[in-house]
């Protein structure tokens, strides 16, 4: 049987808009429309629209839902009636990362938005652990998700949202955009202000069209996976499969502030017994070629780490990289990276590389 990638609610619209499509986590998604650099800049300077429907969307319903999540997730779980969205971590019993995700309180139920590549494994694990009275459902195929990101995102959405008060940072509200019921989350993966928008699969295309209808006024650009990666990279946001994985702990990844130490959670005891020996660091490559994922990092001829993500950073005009290095490695230190067989000098620099309050207009 031939494996076919699934269309998202927006694949046909993306195709019609001239996207270069690729298969990613089993879905047909745009790599780019007008080009990675143009889209990256559009998000930093104006606003970009991304299809993020590939992310897994799971619902937990029933009286024990909150307790289940408090046992299995390592971070704070918002109370059921809260409007607070929480970035959270799913750990294995050794304290290693199974996934990073967002938790949404939905007035009794909880919603989880997880990485597409981990969705099936997360669902199985959470279902297996759930007591009988907690219903765990996969709502991914029944829903659609878009990300609207950039300094003009708020103005654009206000234009569409009428009287609706838009939620503040890491808050969630339900409202109507046009006549479309939408879940509006003030979250994102680009380092810019913006929203992630959730609606039904059937309403997705209309929401896209509505956003595009007013988008011209704000310089809206359709944006794909390539720009999504270079944007999150500049903001030093970790990507599962690169900075995060089952052998990496939150302490190594710089995510300790998201741990709810005060209560038990899967992996808590292991983390206490497992102090980190490495930490995530930033690197500036001093030559013209970029260090890419997997490149080995040397100090005094000894291999001391590997690049987890690396590329030419569009906003900053430098070749940058992320990697796990010994804890004592500090900004200013000079190291060497093997780039396709050549030893290239690099300098350790602090992360994030891009901070919108500091670097806007670069």
């Amino acid at each position, binding site marked *: 049987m031939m494996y076919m990638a699934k269309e998202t609610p927006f694949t046909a619209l993306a195709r019609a808009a001239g996207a*270069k499509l690729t298969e990613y986590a089993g879905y047909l998604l745009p*790599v*780019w429309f007008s*080009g*990675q*650099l143009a889209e*990256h800049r559009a998000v930093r300077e104006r606003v970009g629209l991304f299809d993020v429907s590939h992310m897994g969307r799971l619902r937990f319903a029933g009286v024990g839902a909150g307790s289940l999540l408090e046992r299995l997730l390592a971070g704070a779980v918002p109370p059921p009636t809260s409007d607070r969205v929480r970035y959270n971590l799913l750990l294995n019993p050794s304290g290693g990362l199974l996934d990073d995700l967002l938790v949404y309180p939905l007035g009794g139920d909880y919603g989880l938005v997880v990485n597409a590549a981990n969705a099936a494994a997360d669902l199985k694990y959470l279902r297996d652990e759930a007591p009988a009275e907690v219903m765990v459902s996969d709502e991914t195929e029944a829903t659609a998700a878009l990300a609207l990101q950039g300094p003009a995102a708020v103005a654009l959405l206000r234009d569409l949202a009428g009287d609706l008060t838009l939620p503040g940072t890491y808050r969630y509200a339900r409202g109507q955009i046009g006549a479309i019921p939408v879940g509006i989350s003030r979250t994102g993966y680009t380092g810019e202000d913006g929203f992630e928008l959730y609606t039904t699969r059937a309403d997705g295309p209309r929401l896209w069209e509505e956003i595009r209808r007013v988008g011209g006024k704000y310089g809206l650009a359709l944006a794909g996976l*390539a720009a999504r*990666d*270079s944007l999150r990279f500049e903001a030093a946001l970790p990507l599962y499969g690169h900075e995060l994985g089952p052998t990496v702990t939150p302490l190594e990844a710089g995510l300790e502030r998201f741990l709810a130490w005060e209560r038990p959670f899967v992996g808590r005891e292991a983390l206490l017994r497992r102090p980190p020996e490495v930490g995530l660091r930033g690197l500036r490559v001093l030559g*013209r*070629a*970029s260090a*890419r994922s997997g490149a080995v990092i040397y100090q005094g001829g000894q291999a001391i780490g590997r690049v987890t993500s690396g*590329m*030419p950073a*569009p906003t900053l005009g430098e070749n940058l990289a992320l990697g796990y290095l010994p804890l004592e490695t500090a900004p200013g230190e000079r190291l060497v990276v093997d780039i*396709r067989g050549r030893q290239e000098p690099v300098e350790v620099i602090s992360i994030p590389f891009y901070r919108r309050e500091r670097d806007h207009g670069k």
Partner: protein
Amino acid sequence: MGNERRFSREHEWIQPEGGQGLIGITDYAQKELGDVVYVELPAVGAELKRGETFGTVESVKSVSDLYAPVSGRVVAINQAVVDEPEILNRDPYGAGWLVKVAIAAPGELADLLDQASYEAEFPPA
């Protein structure tokens, strides 16, 4: 054989003229790569061997090796592309030429594809 452009399956082209040829990458290749940010070329005088790597093209997203479509000695490199890599995206068959070689073995041209065959295998988008 004449002076028609010939293509390799690794997405390089060569435009022969007399005993020399301009070498570059195809439109198909530049579309796959995306926005080119860096090109690494051999030095003038370098000897290229058919099928072996002779440089790299780097976009934000990825790095690709350049494979010599024919054997020959590099007699010129396109400094404009080194200074402004985006030329490769804009004009891969004209201003985006990469190196000029003195062709060592003209018979190798016959092993490459003509434009129709290349485009049949790698249809223009």
